[in-house]
C-alpha cells in the first residue's frame, strides 16, 4: 500500500475534525480540494506583509506584491511546462478560462456551417460555452461518444472531427467517469483537420504531471481550488501566437496600452487578458500550492491515488448492489469514482454517508448530457486526493455497507 505522502495531521487541520461525531473522511476532492497550511500561510503572509495592488505601483509594497504575483505566474508556467510566462493567464477558474476562449477565439473564428466537437462527458463548463457559441454562430455542435467502458471512443472522435471542425474541446480527465482522455492523439486529429484543441484540465492538473507543450494543446484551462490553491483563481494556458491574435475578453485597468476617447490599444501578453485588479493573493496562494505539490511530486501523487483505486475499486465492485461507472479495471480508473447503491437515490446515500463522516457528492456532477447518455438521473461520487488513505477507503466501504443495511431495514427503498 502507498506510503504517506503528506503530514496530514499538521498540513491539513480541517481533516482532523469530526463530523456528526465521526472522523471526517473527505472524499469530495473532485469538487474542491482541501488546502495545506502552507497555502493558507502564503495568503496570511501576503496580507500581513506585502499587500498592495500590482504593476502600477512605485512604492515598496507594490513592488513586492508585483514580484510575488509574477513569481506565481512563473511557478504555474513551469508546473504545466509552458514555454513562456506570457502564455499563462490568471483567471477566476476553469469556467472563466473556457468562457474566455469561447468568447474571444471562438467568437472570432467560428462561422455558420462550421463544427465544434466536444465529448458527451464534458462538464457543463466545457459544454455550454460551445453550445451557446454554436447556437449563436449557426455552427454545429458534435459530441464524441464513449466506449462501453466509459472511455472516450477514439473511432468516434476520428469520425466526428472533420475538415469543417474549427474547435475540439475535451476534458483531459473526466469528473464523472474516472477516465483520462488521449489528449495528444486528439490534438493531432484536430490539427490534421485544421482545428484547434482546447483542453479542460480541471481534473487532470491536480492529479498527474501535465506538459502542455508536449501535449501540443492550443488552450488549456484549469482551476486552482481543485489543486489545493485558494478559491477564485485559475489558469488559462494559450499558445502565444493565438493569444496574440485574439481580441481581449474584458476591458478595464491594467490591460490597456493607450486609451483615447474613441478607441484604445491593448497591453502585451499576458496582461491583455487580465483586466482590472486580479485575485493577487489567490495567484500567490496557487503558487504556494504548486510548491506543495512539487515538493511531493506529481508522479508520486498519481501513483498514490492509483494505489488507493487499486485497493478500493475492486472492493466496491464486489459489494452487492453497488454499481460503479466508468472502467471496471482499476488500472484505467482515476480517483474519481461515480457509483450508485441498490436503487437508492444518491442523495439519500450521500446523506447516510455524511452521518458516518464520509463526504461524497451526489447529483449530476454538472454533466447532465452524460447522465442522459448513461440513462441515469444522478450518481454518488467519491473522489480521492493525496491525503486520502487506505483507512479512508475502508471507512467508505463500511459506511456503504451500513447505509445498505439501514435502508434495507426500513420497509422500503426510494424509487
Amino acid at each position, binding site marked *: 500500500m502507498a506510503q504517506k505522502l503528506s503530514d496530514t495531521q499538521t498540513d491539513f487541520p480541517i481533516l482532523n475534525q469530526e463530523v*456528526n*461525531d*465521526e472522523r471526517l473522511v473527505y472524499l469530495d476532492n473532485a469538487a474542491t480540494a482541501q488546502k495545506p497550511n502552507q497555502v493558507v500561510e502564503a495568503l496570511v503572509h501576503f496580507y500581513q506583509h506585502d499587500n498592495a495592488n500590482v504593476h502600477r505601483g512605485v512604492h515598496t509594497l507594490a513592488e513586492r506584491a508585483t514580484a510575488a504575483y509574477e513569481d506565481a505566474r512563473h511557478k504555474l508556467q513551469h508546473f504545466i511546462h509552458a514555454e513562456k510566462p506570457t502564455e499563462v493567464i490568471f483567471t477566476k477558474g476553469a469556467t472563466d478560462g473556457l468562457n474566455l476562449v469561447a468568447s474571444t477565439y471562438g467568437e472570432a473564428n467560428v462561422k455558420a456551417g462550421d463544427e465544434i466537437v466536444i465529448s458527451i462527458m464534458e462538464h457543463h463548463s466545457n459544454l455550454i460555452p460551445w453550445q451557446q457559441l454554436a447556437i449563436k454562430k449557426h455552427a454545429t455542435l458534435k459530441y464524441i461518444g464513449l466506449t462501453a467502458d466509459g472511455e472516450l471512443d477514439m473511432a468516434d472522435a476520428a469520425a466526428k472531427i472533420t475538415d469543417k471542425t474549427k474547435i475540439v474541446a475535451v476534458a483531459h480527465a473526466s469528473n464523472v467517469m474516472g477516465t483520462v482522455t488521449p489528449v495528444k492523439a486528439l490534438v493531432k486529429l484536430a490539427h490534421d483537420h485544421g482545428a484547434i484543441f482546447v483542453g479542460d484540465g480541471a481534473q487532470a492538473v491536480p492529479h498527474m504531471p501535465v506538459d502542455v507543450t508536449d501535449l501540443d494543446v492550443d488552450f488549456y484551462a484549469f482551476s486552482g481550488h481543485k489543486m489545493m490553491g485558494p478559491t477564485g483563481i485559475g489558469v488559462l494556458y494559450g499558445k502565444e501566437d493565438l493569444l496574440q491574435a485574439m481580441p481581449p475578453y474584458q476591458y478595464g485597468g491594467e490591460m490597456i496600452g493607450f486609451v483615447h476617447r474613441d478607441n484604445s490599444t491593448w497591453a502585451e501578453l499576458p496582461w491583455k487578458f487580465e483586466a482590472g485588479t486580479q485575485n493577487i493573493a489567490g495567484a500567490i496562494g496557487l503558487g504556494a500550492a504548486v510548491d506543495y505539490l512539487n515538493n511531493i511530486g506529481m508522479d508520486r501523487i498519481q501513483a498514490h491515488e492509483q494505489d488507493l483505486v487499486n485497493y478500493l475499486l475492486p472492493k466496491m465492485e464486489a459489494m452487492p448492489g453497488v454499481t460503479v461507472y466508468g472502467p471496471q479495471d482499476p488500472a484505467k480508473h482515476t480517483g474519481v469514482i461515480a457509483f450508485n447503491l441498490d436503487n*437508492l*437515490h*444518491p*442523495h*439519500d446515500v450521500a*446523506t*447516510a454517508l*455524511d*452521518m*458516518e463522516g464520509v463526504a461524497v457528492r*451526489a*447529483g*449530476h456532477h454538472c454533466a*447532465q448530457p452524460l*447522465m442522459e447518455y448513461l440513462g441515469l*438521473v*444522478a450518481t454518488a461520487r467519491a473522489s480521492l486526493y493525496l491525503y486520502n488513505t487506505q483507512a479512508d477507503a475502508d471507512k467508505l466501504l463500511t459506511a456503504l455497507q*451500513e*447505509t445498505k443495511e*439501514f*435502508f434495507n431495514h*426500513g*420497509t*422500503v*427503498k*426510494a*424509487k
Partner: protein
Amino acid sequence: MGLSKLNSLYREVILDHADHPHHKHALAESTNTITLKNPTCGDVINLEIKLTPDDKIADIGFTGDGCTISQSSASMMSDAVMGKSKEEALKMAKTFSDMAIGKEHPQADLDELQDAAILSNIMQFPARIKCATLSWWALQRALLEETDDTSEEES
C-alpha cells in the same frame, strides 16, 4: 453518532410514502401545471392540478424522479391539499416552507399539513431542505400560475 440520526429523517411514514407514493401519476386533464427542478441534485417534479371553477383542488398528480425525501414530500403534499381551496393550499405551502426554515407556526397550522408535518425535522439536515420543499414550491407556483421555470428558488 453513525447512522442513528438518520432515523429522525427517514421516519417510517416517510419511507412508506416514498415507497408507495400517493398521486404519483399524470392527470387526464389539468388546469395548472408546472415543471420544477431541484438544482442541488437535478431532480425534477412535474405537478398537475385540476381546479374546479370555484378554485378547489379537484385532483392533483405528480411525476418525476427524486430522492426519498422529495418523493415522499410530494406524496404527502398531494394528500394534504386534495379538496382544499386554492387559498387554503397556498397557506399550507407557506406554513410548510416556514416550518422547513425553522419558523414557528401555531399547532393548528401544522396539523393541517397532515403527514407532511413530520418533515419538520428536516431542519437538522439543511442540505435536504430543498428536497422537502420542492413539491410545495411547485404547488405554490402552479396555483399562482407562474410560468415554468428551471429551478427552485432559495428556500
